[in-house]
């Protein structure tokens, strides 16, 4: 074979060989990557985990000023029946005072109900302030004991190391007193 390609110059085969080596290497790398992918992807959430049903919560038993925790996708969701004062506090804050600026309006569907994922956006602890008597931090919301993050009555980060507001999950009100999360 080498005799027929000699013509390409005084360094026989160079281009053709380089090309073959490169092409083989590329196929090898892509092939290995493709073979690895199923293993990597097997560590992602499986279908049964993804299929975790949404939860329906009855709100009629939550008095004004009270809050509850429900489990959704293995995480707690805080549902707080806010008082007039808490709503007003949340609405009155100027956006430029916020670490992660968001209006209260954008975070609730009905003013009196605040629904947020109860996972601190710093490193994932559950902030305190849902059960009566727990510390609510300096802003009438939640206080994370792990590294001292304070959230306000709209679940927005106000002080401490957490970078983001508590997440708002997708939810829909089925009736005035029942909500479906997820």
């Amino acid at each position, binding site marked *: 074979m080498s005799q027929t390609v000699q013509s390409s110059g005084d360094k026989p085969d160079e281009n053709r060989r380089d090309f073959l080596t490169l092409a083989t290497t590329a196929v090898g790398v892509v092939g290995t990557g493709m073979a690895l992918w199923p293993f*990597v992807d097997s*560590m*992602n*959430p*499986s279908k049964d*985990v993804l299929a975790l049903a949404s939860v329906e919560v009855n709100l009629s038993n939550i008095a004004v000023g009270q809050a509850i*925790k429900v*489990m959704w*996708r*293995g*995480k*707690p969701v805080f549902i707080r029946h806010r008082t007039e004062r808490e709503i007003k506090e949340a609405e009155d804050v100027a956006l430029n005072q916020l670490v992660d600026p968001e209006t209260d309006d954008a975070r609730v569907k009905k003013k009196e109900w605040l629904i947020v994922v109860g*996972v601190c956006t*710093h*490193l*994932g*602890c*559950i902030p*305190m302030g849902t059960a009566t008597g727990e510390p609510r931090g300096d802003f009438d919301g939640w206080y*994370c*004991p*792990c*590294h*001292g993050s304070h959230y306000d009555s709209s679940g927005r980060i106000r002080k401490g*190391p*957490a*970078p983001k507001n508590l997440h708002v999950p997708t939810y829909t009100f089925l009736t005035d007193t029942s909500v479906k999360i997820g």
Partner: protein
Amino acid sequence: MSAPVWNNKVVKWVDDRLPIISMVHHAAYEYPTPKNLSYMWNFGSLAGFVLVTMILSGIFLVMNYTPHADMAFDSVERIMRDVNYGWLIRYLHVNGASMFFICVYIHIFRGLYYGSYKAPREVLWWIGILILLAMMATAFMGYVLPWGQMSFWGATVITNLFSAFPVIGDPLVTWLWGGFSVGNPTLNRFFSLHYLLPFVILGLVVLHVWALHAVRSNNPTGVEIKTPQDSIPFHPYYTIKDLFGMGVFLIIYLYFVFFAPNFFGEPDNYIMANPLSTPAHIVPEWYFLPFYAILRSIDFEFLGIPAKLLGVLAMFAAIIVLFVIPWLDTSKVRSSRFRPVYKWFFVILVIDCFILGYCGAKSPADPFMGLHGLQVITVGQLATLYYFLHFLVVMPVVGKMERPKPLPASISESVLKGGANA
């Protein structure tokens, strides 16, 4: 070092076909060892001993452990109460982890003091740091297995660290968990990896010893072996010294196993994991505290990098920096025994690491050692600063400026002049 001649026919037959007996003979028998090694050189073999203990006790724990979120906690309690000697095997494993880190930390600081990371031992040093990283991963995942409150919340906080990375952060954490929070899939994969990694460590240890035997042991003078007079064969001199050290070590290790088995532990880990309630105070195992303190001390953003990401980067950097110290240290002298200035910075570094450990164990807003007006976080920040200054500034600068004491001509000379007291 000529190949030994084996008299026993069977030994010879095997060795001719697979020279494994010669290899072990070279490594553990005739290996020419500096004749002036101090007890600081015991901790390598001790760490190896603990590794074997961990693997053995681990294999027996697995026979009774159930890696499922609903059953793991109870299965560990059953090991403690019902399995014959289960308590002993578990306490050997639990305290073994602490002993492992004690040995390895002493081993590392020994290397730092005597300049064992410098040429030609850089690769040996790197493999050591890889072992440290693998140990940390192993111990972290092992701590999750009993599925107590600290297991669960420690896992939550540490895996969440990866969410600090932009863009890939959240998908990465979901991938690590195999779900939307730490749960059964997380426990299962941690169990799988906790079983695997110790054997990876074992492989790394083989490479570590291989590299050691290629470049030979350093010694308290930092002067290389020059003539045969400088060395003695490993056996019987150091086999006996290592054995003696092991006896002392076992007294300490077993004291904890039998008389204070939960000394290093957290009572909260005897409460089953509850995803709805975070313990008031989350602390990692003691051996992670200095790194945890570095992580938490970064509560400010810098160059547009948010605090959370910066903290994570600083924590990893604290270990990564060890890889490059062979080039950061500009001094031509290995042993700090002959480095009158650097010696004191080394002492400061050791104290600094203890202070970091203390800060890691306390809440950031607490007063430091009960001193009012001085917060743990502030001290943690200063200690973090020194940690990095030590490697990035002190090492290069002091190495250049310091005038070392005269080195002995050889190991033998130093021994004859009573150099061991210097």
